[in-house]
């Protein structure tokens, strides 16, 4: 099934002509309305009028997370706040989040693309959708919600947490589809089984899972334990939210990027050079139709590869393979993006603490856990237990306040952690993916 047959199956030639026209428009718009883009285009020696073919996109400068940070909170918006109807945010690397804005039309397009994604997974207006993505600043909850309503399906706005209640609703309301992270789907399966619920006999038949890395083995396990078809969805708040790309039920091999609204590229993260189709690289997106907050060549940090071969579902849009990892050291902990540098800056903010630390990421009951080991120093050591416990509590609180994740903090002896140059060596990730 296809939600928007005309645009999702547009012949490549027509699709690319549409992309070029929209690229020229958006490049012109950001150049003339956002000081940042004018400056970086000028520095790169290119003007919007120089874009004659789609390949000319490679001459445009990249936009990075750092650029978003430098223009916090609204510096890259192209419309006045009076035209913005919604704000979302994702965690940033210095404690400040990345803020994104939407006009009424942006919300409408997002809803339509999300509806496309749901239909791509085989859903119709007759489905009941259990939405366990978090509602709030995170785009997951509301993004899926609006798409489900656009489709005309019945949506249950569960949000995240309260697993026992979620299982009760799954039994009593009989949803036919669930949207959540893959690890939460497994957690639900496990908790339900422990509660004596036959999770395979629920009415659920489809899972639309994303917002964290996973693999075929996890897909198999989720499908077996919940008795559903599990499909991969991709999105990021900077570009829109969920619904940038979606796996189709027919092909089950890669996610179609909705190319009438986005241009996707893969680059070598070291050199910035474009890598050929089929080869792994960092995903780079340009949003073609966003009004409030379009981004030109945004570097996502997500590693994937693009597949141009036609798909049996009939969609002509290019597919991206499931995200295989990160080009940087970003960690995803229960769906929250966390950079080790953020933790380091929190530790540096606590007087007397030396930022010698180690992060241990693991999974307990299928949910991510984060332990932060911090070395003791002469400056903070005390002969009183309660003073050391206060330091641990302070670190936990600051991490929660700035990053939104709950960490277990453990003080360890000085000079017991390995000293290394590379930051990633400070992270021990024991999760499977």
């Amino acid at each position, binding site marked *: 099934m296809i939600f928007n047959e005309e645009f999702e199956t547009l012949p490549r030639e027509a699709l690319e002509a549409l992309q070029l026209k929209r690229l020229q428009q958006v490049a012109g718009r950001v150049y003339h309305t956002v000081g940042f883009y004018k400056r970086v285009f000028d520095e790169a020696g290119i003007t919007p009028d120089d874009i004659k073919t789609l390949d000319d996109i490679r001459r445009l400068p990249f936009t990075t997370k750092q650029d978003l940070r430098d223009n916090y909170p609204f510096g890259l918006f192209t419309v006045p706040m009076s035209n913005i109807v919604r704000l979302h945010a994702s965690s940033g690397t210095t404690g400040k989040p990345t803020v994104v804005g939407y006009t009424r039309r942006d919300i409408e397009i997002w809803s339509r693309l999300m509806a496309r994604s749901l239909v791509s997974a085989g859903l119709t207006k007759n489905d009941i959708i259990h939405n366990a993505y978090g509602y709030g600043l995170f785009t997951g909850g509301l993004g899926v919600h609006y798409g489900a309503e656009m489709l005309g399906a019945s949506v249950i706005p569960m949000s995240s947490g309260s697993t026992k209640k979620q299982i009760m609703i799954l039994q009593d309301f009989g949803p036919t589809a669930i949207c959540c992270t893959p690890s939460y789907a497994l957690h639900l399966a496990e908790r339900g089984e422990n509660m004596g619920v036959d999770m395979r006999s629920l009415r659920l038949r489809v899972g639309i899972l994303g917002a964290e890395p996973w693999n075929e083995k996890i897909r198999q396990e989720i499908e077996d334990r919940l008795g559903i078809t599990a499909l991969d969805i991709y999105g990021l708040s900077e570009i829109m939210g969920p619904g940038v790309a979606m796996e189709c039920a027919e092909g089950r091999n890669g996610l179609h990027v909705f190319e009438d609204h986005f241009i996707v590229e893969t680059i070598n993260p070291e050199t910035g050079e474009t890598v050929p189709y089929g080869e792994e690289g960092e995903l780079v997106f340009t949003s073609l139709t966003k009004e409030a907050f379009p981004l030109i060549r945004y570097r996502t940090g997500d590693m994937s590869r693009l597949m141009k071969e036609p798909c049996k579902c009939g969609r002509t849009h290019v597919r991206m393979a499931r995200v295989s990892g990160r080009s940087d050291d970003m960690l995803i902990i229960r769906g929250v993006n966390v950079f080790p540098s953020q933790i380091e800056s929190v530790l540096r903010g606590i007087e007397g603490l030396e930022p010698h630390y180690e992060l241990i990421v693991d999974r307990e009951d299928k949910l991510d856990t984060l332990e932060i080991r911090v070395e*003791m*120093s*002469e400056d903070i*050591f*005390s*002969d*009183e*237990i309660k003073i*050391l*416990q206060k330091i*641990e509590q302070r670190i936990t609180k600051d991490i929660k306040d700035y990053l939104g994740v709950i960490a277990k903090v*453990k*003080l*360890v*002896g*000085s*000079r*017991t952690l390995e000293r290394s140059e590379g930051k990633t060596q400070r992270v021990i990730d024991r999760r499977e993916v």
Partner: protein
Amino acid sequence: MKVEQVSVFLENKPGGLEHVTRVLADADINIRALSLADTSDFGILRLIVNDMESAAKALQDEGFTVKRSHVVAVEIPDRPGGMHSISKVLTEKNINVEYAYAFVERSGENAIIIFRFDDIDAGIDALLENGFTVLPGEKVYRL
């Protein structure tokens, strides 16, 4: 009238205490009193030794995090209610005991208790005013 104490940070894992006592034994240090306080994560070992200077240095050289601080050593009458007579005075004077532990040796007929007060000087004054014997550091290290 204060006694110097050295505290050592210990991770909660096997061999931590043994490591400290080995370092001190190798440095010819005699441990006079000791208390180990711990949580599920870490412990604090507090020591009174015959040679504070050498003990702190030996431990630091081994990579331990060490803190030197002052505590009070008080003689308590070795009879029922002996400890209570001290607690009573401290409560009356509103002095908070952060922790306390017993000394290995005796001073004549009397036991010795080590106290860490929130206000160490006020604690010493209160005890002296009420006729308790507070032992000076030099005496404690050599007991």
